[in-house]
């Protein structure tokens, strides 16, 4: 148990205060820098709220794709499975098997959409995104 407000609440008020109270008295260049700082705080706040996975079923889906040990330490397991996925995509492992490719590409979609919500929630395309995946790769 820690003191309150908690870390996320503090980051939120720090971000708001920087923009609404501090930046208004700054020069143009300083306001630009303050906006960057506020943006960094906002991203950190959204990331911390999520935990180690970018989206809820990320680790579960990766483990299912690779039949990985569910008792392994989550953070290192996540990193290792992403590394394996990247390596397999490069090697063309998913070129031929349509079912596995659909699963892998679905995972990539979920990952990117979740990271976009953290990194740039206003990215315009996010609102119209459809995460359906293609099945044909030459």
């Amino acid at each position, binding site marked *: 148990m820690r003191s309150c407000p908690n870390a996320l609440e503090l980051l939120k008020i720090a971000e708001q205060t920087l923009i609404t109270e501090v930046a208004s008295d700054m020069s143009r260049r300083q306001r630009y820098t303050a906006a*960057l700082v506020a943006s960094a705080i906002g991203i950190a706040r959204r990331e911390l709220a999520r935990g180690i996975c970018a989206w809820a079923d990320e680790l579960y889906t990766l483990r299912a794709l690779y039949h990985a040990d569910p008792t392994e330490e989550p953070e290192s397991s996540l990193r290792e499975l*992403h590394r394996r996925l990247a390596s397999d995509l490069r090697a063309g492992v998913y070129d031929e098997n349509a079912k596995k490719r659909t699963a892998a590409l679905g995972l990539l979609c979920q990952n990117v959409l979740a990271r976009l919500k953290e990194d740039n929630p206003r990215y315009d395309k996010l609102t119209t995104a459809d995460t359906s995946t293609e099945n044909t790769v030459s």
Partner: protein
Amino acid sequence: MALGPFIRDAAAADSVTVKDGNLLTGGAIQENRALTVTIDGGEFSGIHEMVLRSEATSPIIESRPLDQQFAVLKAAEAAGVTVPKPLWYCGDTAITGKPFYLMQRIEGEALGNRITRAGEQPDLAAALGRELARIHTIQPPRTDLSFLELISLSPSLDAVAKYRAYLDVLPEPHPVLEWTLRWLENRAPNAGEAVLCHRDFRTGNYMVNNGVLTGVIDWEFTGWGDPHEDVAWFCARCWRFSAPALEAGGISPRNVFYNAYESASGRTLDVDLMAYWETMAHVRWAVIALQQAMRHRSGEEPSIELALIGRRVAELEYECLRLTGVIK
């Protein structure tokens, strides 16, 4: 020797005074400093607004050394491209601590968000199409540009290999970029016509004054390549800033830019190649963004701006998935 005596000798002047100005915004890789230079005597006699461009503390791998940038800028000027006039290059680090070159300072605005907030600008887009065609009149072989790497039978496969090599030195895996590079590898076109590609010809890298183009800037990534690469880079979603619906650089529909380029160059743009190189554009910018973020993460150049560039990668990966048909 200080900067003043260097300019005095380079300009064959009697005396020179230099008034140091501000660090100009917008140079994430190179540093640009505004100078007011008063020259007495010689052909440059008068007051000149100049820019001193020097190497960043930790330049990224793709960035060309300043002497090569200067040579490319001179070649572009000679080809009739609208550029800030290149003046003098200096490789002696005793003068300012780093190699640098001086060029004329041009009037105008380069910030992408501001330019694209002005709405549709078809005349500017057409002017840029013609400028790009002018850049693409520079073709190999060129003795003055002999430092540019020769083009291979498949520039696209060369690019795939290069970006994979860049990814291999980064600490984290990047599955979306790996997927996209595999997609590009499976569809690689053969080499077409080789031209001088600016490789960063986009909104944010030209100056505009009252709606009129005053100069194409930032020549640090140039190389021989397929002309579609530059056209696609200009139109890529990541360079439309505040106006994503205006597909040519956030300033006009594509056809305005394409038509001006095609009329001026005599080439017909291939739709499939445009889609291919536009996908490559997003991979390339994602890899550069990761490298930029590493300049901060490595401790070489702590910077909030560089740190945040690393958090732009999700947008670029989103576009990669859209362009490869994964996200509809």
